């Protein structure tokens, strides 16, 4: 870990000003940043401490019935929040399953969305991969069991956020403040594929700060589920995660659905194919299975990660059924 200073700006505009400078990094919960610093993946001169520059630490219900989550809200607070648990179950569940209890008490919502990939080539201090400005991605032709089966190339990382698929499923937006002012972006558009720029996972500009996540009010009759498949059950990154929202009536007729997969692609992977397949169908296991089938149709696995396809199919099917109130194995 290099030496750095820690500066606390007087306010958010000054934080933006500082972060616009070269070699500065934003410090919030600090969990992923410290990991990157310890691995010598980043070496900022200055950490800009975002704690204390503005609130950003509350979960509030807004007038339209939606919820705003400050970027500095801890994952443990998301997991425990009664409103989120009741109305945005998949979000609370995703937070509850992230990392460990001790990390959830430190890690923030903003940090979770902005964390860098867990790819073992990216995290290796001696490997200069494409994502770090090197000339190649080592996953194809290398050890790629945890890598992307969808949307990969030229980098094959998977997006590591547990929260992101659930938030994308609920059509959340993020509020960013930067040198050019404030902007609001659908979270789905916030993440970006490596074919656009393999060194980044999102469109956050230099100097920009993610300050808030806004989730609109769920549609009447909407219910959600979040599921993960992990090799081990105590602290592990998911092989596949799925957040599903099903809007249905008493007869199980699906009016709308959102299906987002995590850990399968460099971004939270929304399956419009699955959603189309579900819309208008009566929710049962064969409808859910059809959705799962079409969701994974575009999958293009690497040498070692084809097994993620059946797992993803199983989880899509189960998440859809669970969201629709049909319990399954």
């Amino acid at each position, binding site marked *: *870990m290099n030496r750095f200073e820690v500066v606390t700006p007087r306010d958010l505009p000054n934080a933006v000003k500082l972060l616009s400078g070269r070699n500065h990094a934003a410090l919030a919960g600090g969990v992923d940043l410290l990991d990157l610093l310890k691995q010598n993946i980043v070496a900022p001169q200055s950490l800009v401490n975002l704690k204390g520059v503005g609130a950003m630490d509350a979960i509030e219900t807004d007038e339209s019935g939606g919820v705003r989550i400050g970027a500095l809200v801890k994952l443990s607070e998301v997991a425990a929040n009664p409103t989120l648990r009741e109305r945005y179950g998949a979000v609370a569940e995703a937070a509850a399953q992230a990392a460990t209890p001790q990390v959830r008490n430190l890690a923030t919502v903003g940090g979770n969305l902005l964390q860098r990939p867990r790819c073992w080539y990216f995290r290796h201090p001696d490997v200069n991969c494409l994502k770090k400005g090197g000339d190649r991605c080592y996953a194809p032709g290398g050890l790629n069991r945890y890598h992307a089966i969808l949307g990969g190339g030229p980098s094959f990382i998977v997006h590591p956020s547990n929260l992101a698929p659930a938030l994308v499923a609920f059509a959340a937006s993020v509020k960013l403040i930067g040198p050019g002012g404030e902007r609001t972006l659908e979270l789905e558009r916030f993440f970006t594929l490596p074919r656009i720029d393999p060194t980044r996972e999102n469109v956050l500009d230099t100097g920009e700060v993610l300050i808030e996540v806004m989730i609109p009010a769920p549609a009447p009759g909407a219910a959600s589920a979040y599921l993960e498949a992990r090799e081990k059950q105590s602290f592990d990154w998911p092989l596949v995660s799925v957040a599903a929202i099903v809007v249905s009536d008493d007869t199980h007729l699906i009016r709308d659905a959102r299906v987002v997969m995590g850990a399968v692609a460099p971004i939270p992977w929304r399956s419009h194919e699955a959603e189309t397949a579900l819309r208008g169908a009566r929710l049962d296991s064969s409808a859910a299975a059809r959705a799962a089938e079409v969701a994974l149709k575009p999958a293009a696995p690497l040498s070692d990660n084809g097994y993620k396809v059946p797992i993803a199919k199983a989880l899509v099917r189960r998440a859809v059924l669970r969201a629709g109130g049909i319990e399954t194995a």
Partner: protein
Amino acid sequence: MPGNGDDQRVHRLSRRAFIKGAGAAAAAARLIGAAVPLPAVEVADNSSPNPDGAIAERLGPGAVTIELKVNGAARKITVEPRVTVLEVLRDHLGLYGTKLVCDRGACGACTIHLDGHPVVACMMLAVDARGHEIVTIEGLGTPDRMHPVQAAFVQADALQCGFCTPGMVMSIAALLEDNPSPNIDEIKRAVAGNICRCGTYPHVFNAALAAAKSRGAKPKGGNA
């Protein structure tokens, strides 16, 4: 060394900036693939001006004196901003009960309580812990006056080599503050971030159940 408030060790260190471009550490050439060293860090001056008052506080990169509240006492220490809470506890305050094992927040051996909540001390900068109440394993009990959770760990033999034990104890103690009568699944989830290579988990579960019982709570179900 614990108890005297000030850190003794810093006096061995020069207060000047030691390194011109400490980023050399980070620039340790990446030898696999095209080596593109990261830019060396220009060390910012500790006393650089702040004309427009944009900055409320500037710490480092040299050592700065900060105060932490540890086990009920205010402790002054002088550390670089890159130092973690864990390093401060061990190397500056002589509180060796908190262990470093994975150094990445993955094993829970360095679990402390921050304002009553369990956190990993290895993934938190010391400067970020200012203004918070830190409790370490030493703040929980002593061999002569053990906390009920510590006593239960001994009785259940919930320890083997003992290296993960302080972290396990801290996780269980925090759980019982929140939930005085946990069932076994809640116990397992509460220590899911603690790794024991000796594999002593079953006895940890027993200890947690016994500690809850000794505090007068009734376990609610569970299959232990």
